[in-house]
C-alpha cells in the first residue's frame, strides 16, 4: 500500500495538516498574472517560492511558466526587500521588457512587512520603470486562505490598478473566469461569442499556457488580456464573476471603483451551472440564446440521458477547490450519482452550506468539509467506499490503494494531459467530463467483468 499509515479510524486533528487539499496564495497569483498579455509575474520573497510555483505550474501545463523572483537572502530578511525588488525591476525591464510586472508577496515579505507600493514608487521616482510600463502588486500571504485566494487577490489587483472610473460606457460584459484551465477560458469566450455577447474575460491564460510549437520560444505568447482592455473594464455594463472564491473579490472591487454591477455565478461546470451562465449572458447581454447553443445543450442532455444507466446511484468522492467543487457536486447529482464525500482544503464555511444545501435538496447524505485535507478525505473514503474519485493527481495514491477509478480534475494535474486543451466548462465541457466519468466506469467493467458476462456493446 502506498498510503499504508492512513487508518480508517478518524481522530481529531487540530494542528497537523497531512496531504493538503490546497496550496499557498502566491501560486494562484502567479497563474492569474500570466493571464495578462506581456506580463511577467514576480515573486517577492526567497527564490525557492518562485522555483516551486513555476515547477508546479509547468508540470501541470507542460508549458513554459515565466516568473522572476526577488531572491531574498538573510540580509534582505533582516533589512527588508526594497533593494532586492528595486534591482529586480531594473533587471526585468532590461532583460525581458514586459509591459506589466505583477508582484505578489510571500510569507517572508509579508512577515517583514515590505510596503510594495512604496518600493515601486521609489523605483518610479528613480526612473527605473520605463515609460508606459506598469508594476502592479497583490498581497498574497501564504498563511491566509489558499492558492484560490491568491488568484482572487491578483485578479482584484488587476481591477485596482487598471480599471478607471468614468470610462466611456460600452455594452460589453466583464467575465472573470476564476482559477480554471486555459481551455476553459477559451471555451467561455467561445460560448459568449456564439451567443453574440461581447465579453472581456480577465485574467485569460488561453493563448499563454497552451502555446503552439513554432521552433521559437515566445517569451510573451499571443494570449492574455490586453492592458488597454483592462483599462476599460470600468465601462462595462455588468461583471459576471464565476466563482465566489476566485472571482467575486475582483468584481466587488470593480463595483466599488467604477460602479459596475456584478453577479456572482458558479463556475459553469455541468448542465445546470452552464444553464445559469448562459441564461445570465442572455439576460445581461440582452440577447436570445442562439439555436447553436441550445443545440449544444441538447446534445449534452441527449448523451446524459442515453447513458444514464451507468451513472445512476454511483457513489462519488470529490476533493478540490470550492468554486469548481460546488458545480461538480451539482453535476454529479444531475447524473443521479451520489456525492457522499465532498472535501476542500480552502477555508470557507459557505462551501459547506452550499454543498450541504445541494445534497439535502437531492436527498443524499454526505460528508462535507472545508479547510480539510486529503488524509481526512481518504479516511472518509475508507469508511464509506465509493465508485469514483474526482480530484487532482494526488488522488491517484488513494485511488490505487482503494481500487477506485479516478477522474482527474483541478489543480494540479501532473500525470495526464488534456486539461490544458479540452475544457470542462460549458455544455461541451460537460460532455467531455461525462465521457471521462463513463470511460472510468466502463473501463472498469471491461477489465473486471468475468468472461461469460463480457459485453461487446455497452
Amino acid at each position, binding site marked *: 500500500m502506498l498510503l499504508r499509515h492512513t487508518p480508517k479510524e478518524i481522530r481529531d486533528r487540530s494542528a497537523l495538516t497531512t496531504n493538503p487539499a490546497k496550496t499557498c496564495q502566491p501560486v494562484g497569483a502567479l497563474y492569474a498574472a500570466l493571464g495578462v498579455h506581456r506580463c511577467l509575474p514576480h515573486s517577492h520573497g526567497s527564490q525557492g517560492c518562485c522555483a516551486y510555483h513555476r515547477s508546479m505550474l*509547468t508540470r501541470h501545463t507542460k508549458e513554459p511558466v515565466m516568473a522572476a523572483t526577488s531572491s531574498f537572502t538573510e540580509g534582505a530578511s533582516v533589512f527588508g526587500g526594497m533593494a532586492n525588488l528595486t534591482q529586480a525591476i531594473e533587471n526585468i525591464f532590461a532583460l525581458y521588457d514586459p509591459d506589466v510586472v505583477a508582484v505578489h508577496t510571500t510569507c517572508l515579505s509579508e512577515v517583514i512587512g515590505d510596503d510594495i507600493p512604496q518600493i515601486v514608487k521609489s523605483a518610479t521616482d528613480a526612473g527605473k520603470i520605463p515609460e508606459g510600463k506598469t508594476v502592479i502588486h497583490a498581497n498574497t500571504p501564504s498563511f491566509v486562505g489558499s492558492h484560490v485566494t491568491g488568484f482572487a487577490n491578483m485578479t482584484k489587483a488587476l481591477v485596482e490598478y487598471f480599471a478607471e472610473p468614468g470610462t466611456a460606457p460600452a455594452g460589453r460584459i466583464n467575465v472573470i473566469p476564476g482559477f480554471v484551465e486555459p481551455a476553459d477560458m477559451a471555451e467561455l469566450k467561445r460560448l459568449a461569442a456564439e451567443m453574440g455577447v461581447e465579453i472581456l474575460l480577465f485574467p485569460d491564460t488561453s493563448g499563454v499556457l497552451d502555446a503552439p510549437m513554432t521552433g521559437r520560444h515566445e517569451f510573451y505568447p499571443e494570449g492574455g488580456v490586453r492592458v488597454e482592455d483592462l483599462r476599460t473594464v470600468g465601462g462595462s455594463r455588468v461583471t459576471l464573476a464565476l466563482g465566489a472564491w476566485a472571482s467575486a473579490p475582483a468584481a466587488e472591487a470593480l463595483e466599488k471603483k467604477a460602479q459596475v454591477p456584478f453577479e456572482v455565478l458558479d463556475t459553469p461546470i455541468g448542465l445546470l451551472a452552464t444553464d445559469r451562465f448562459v441564461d445570465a449572458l442572455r439576460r445581461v447581454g440582452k440577447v436570445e440564446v442562439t439555436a447553436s447553443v441550445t443545440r449544444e445543450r441538447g446534445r449534452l442532455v441527449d448523451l446524459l440521458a442515453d447513458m444514464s444507466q451507468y451513472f445512476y446511484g454511483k457513489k462519488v468522492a470529490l476533493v478540490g477547490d470550492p468554486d469548481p467543487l460546488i458545480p461538480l457536486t451539482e453535476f454529479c447529482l444531475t447524473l443521479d450519482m451520489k456525492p457522499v464525500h465532498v472535501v476542500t482544503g480552502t477555508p470557507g464555511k459557505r462551501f459547506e452550506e452550499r454543498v450541504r444545501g445541494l445534497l439535502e435538496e437531492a436527498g443524499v447524505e454526505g460528508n462535507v468539509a472545508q479547510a480539510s485535507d486529503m488524509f481526512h478525505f481518504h479516511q472518509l473514503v475508507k469508511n464509506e467506499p465509493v465508485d469514483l474519485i474526482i480530484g487532482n493527481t494526488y488522488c491517484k495514491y488513494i485511488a490505487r490503494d482503494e481500487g477506485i477509478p479516478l477522474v482527474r480534475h483541478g489543480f494540479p494535474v501532473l500525470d495526464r494531459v488534456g486539461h490544458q486543451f479540452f475544457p470542462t466548462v460549458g455544455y461541451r465541457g460537460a460532455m467531455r467530463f461525462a465521457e471521462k466519468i463513463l470511460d472510468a466506469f466502463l473501463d472498469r467493467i471491461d477489465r473486471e467483468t468475468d468472461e461469460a458476462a463480457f459485453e461487446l456493446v455497452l
Partner: protein
Amino acid sequence: MASEAPRPEDTKRVLTEAYPSKAARKRAKQIVVNAPPDAEGFRPQILSNTRTTPGVITQRGCSYAGCKGVILGPVRDILTITHGPVGCGFYSWLTRRNQTRPPSEDAPNYMPYALMTDMQENDIVFGGEKKLRKAIREAYEIFRPKAIAIAATCPVGLIGDDIHAVARDMKEELGINIFAFSCEGYKGVSQSAGHHIANNGIFQHVVGTQDEPPEGRFRINLLGEYNIGGDAFEIERILERCGITLVSTFSGNASYDQFARAHMADLNAVMCHRSINYMAEMTEEKYGIPWIKVNFIGAEATAKALRKIAQYFGDPELIDGVERVIAEEMPAVRAVIDEIRPRTGGRTAMLFVGGSRAHHYQELFREIGMRTVAAGYEFGHRDDYEGRKVLPFIKVDADSRNIEELDVEPDPEQYRPRKTADELEALRAQGLDFGEYEGLMADMEVGSLVIDDITHHETERLIELYRPDVFCAGIKEKYVIQKHGIPMKQLHNYDYHGPYAGFRGAIRFYREIDRMVNTRIWRHVTPPWAEKPQPGVLRQAS
C-alpha cells in the same frame, strides 16, 4: 548544432550585453571559457555560490528545498513535519521522484505523506511553537515513527519560533528521536545551504547512535546518491554482485537505522560532492572513515568507481570479483554503444543542472560520442568547478558564514582509523586520491563554456547561438527549450524515466538520448507550407 560554432568569447559578450552594468559585471565572472590548467594546476576562476541577482530568472530554489527536499526527502522512515504555511510542504510532496523499497508490506514508509503545521495568521502573530508541539503529538499518535524531523520555512526564523527547543522537549515527552532543521528558505544563496544544514543535523542527531556492526567484509557508505528514478537500486545491485556491503546511503532508499550505523562503514564513497561532502568530512574527522570521490553515472565511470573501492580494501578476492562483474556487465553496454553511436556521435549537448549532475552526465554523453559544449551548476561552489585544491582560497562571504560549520573532533570512543598513515600513503602512491575532487572543468574541453547559475536570458541566447542537439536542465526549463524545437532532458527527475546509474542505467540513458535526438516529431515543427510556399500551383501527379 549550427554549422559554425560561435567563438566562446563572442558568446560571452552576447550573453552579458543586455544586463544593466552591475549585473553584467557579476555575470561576466560567472561565465568562463574553459582553459587548460596553469603551471600550478589551477583552472580559470569562476564566481559561484554567490547571490542570484534579483529579477534575472534563475533556476535556483531555496535552502528548504535542499534540506527537506533533497537530503531528507529520500528517507522513508523519518517523519518530516514542515513548520510553516501550506505551500512549501505541498510543493515538496512526492515531486522529486525518490524511490524507496521498504523491507516489508508493513514497514514504515512516510514518503507519500506531506505533513505540515499549515501556519495561519494567528500562528504568525502569536508564534507557532504551540501548534508545532501539538502537530508533533498528533503525528506521533497516527504514525508512531522512530524519528521525527522538523523543517523550518521562511517565517519561522523571522517570528522567532525555537524549533530546536520544541524538538528537545518533544523528544523527551515522546521518547523518540526528534530533531529540527533551521532551513528557512532565505538561508544561503541556493539549495546548497539546505544540504549543509541537513548534513549537520543528520550528523549530530542520527549518525553514530547505533553500534551494531553490519555483516560483511567490505563495508562502505554511498554518499550523495538520492535514488531518483531508482538509481540507488542499480548501484545496490552492482555492489551486491561485487560482494561490497552497503551500510548506508545518504540518502537514496535510506532508512533511519542505516544513518544511525553509518559510522560502522570503512569507506565513504562520495557521488554528489556538492550536497554531501560535509558528511564525508565530518565522519572522517569524528570516526576516522576516509572518503573517495566516485561516480556511478557512466559505464566506464562505474567500472572505475568499483575498481577504486576494491583498490582501497586491497583484497585480492574483492579485486577479482570486481573485475569479473565488470567483465560480465560491459559487453551489453558495448553492444548498445556500437549500435547507437552512429546515430549520436558528433552531436552536442548542454547541461545546466544541480551541483554534480552537470559534470557526471558528461560521461554518458561522451560514451556515445556526444560533445558537451557548455555546462554549469545551479548551486555548485568553486570547488565543484575548479576542484578541491581551490578550497583554501575560497573567500567565505556573509551568506555562507550564516550556515553553521560544526566543530568536529575525533570521538573518544568511536574514532577508529581505518588505515594507518603508511597504508594511506601507499594507496595514494598507487593513484587512489582520498578526499579529492577535481571538479567539472577538468573534464571539459578547452574552449567550452562553463556558466554558473545560468539565467533564463542566457539560456535562450545559448540556444539561438548553438542549437545543441539536446539540452539538459530541470522542469522549469523543459518546455522553453522544446518550444525552440530542441529536445530537453530533465536531469533532476529524468522525465519520469531511469534509472541511469550503473551499467544498466547507462544502457537506458544511451537509448533515451538516441530516442530524443532522433525522435521524428522534431522534424515536423515547421509546417510544409512554410517551407515551400507555392501559391496557386497545383501539385503535379508523380
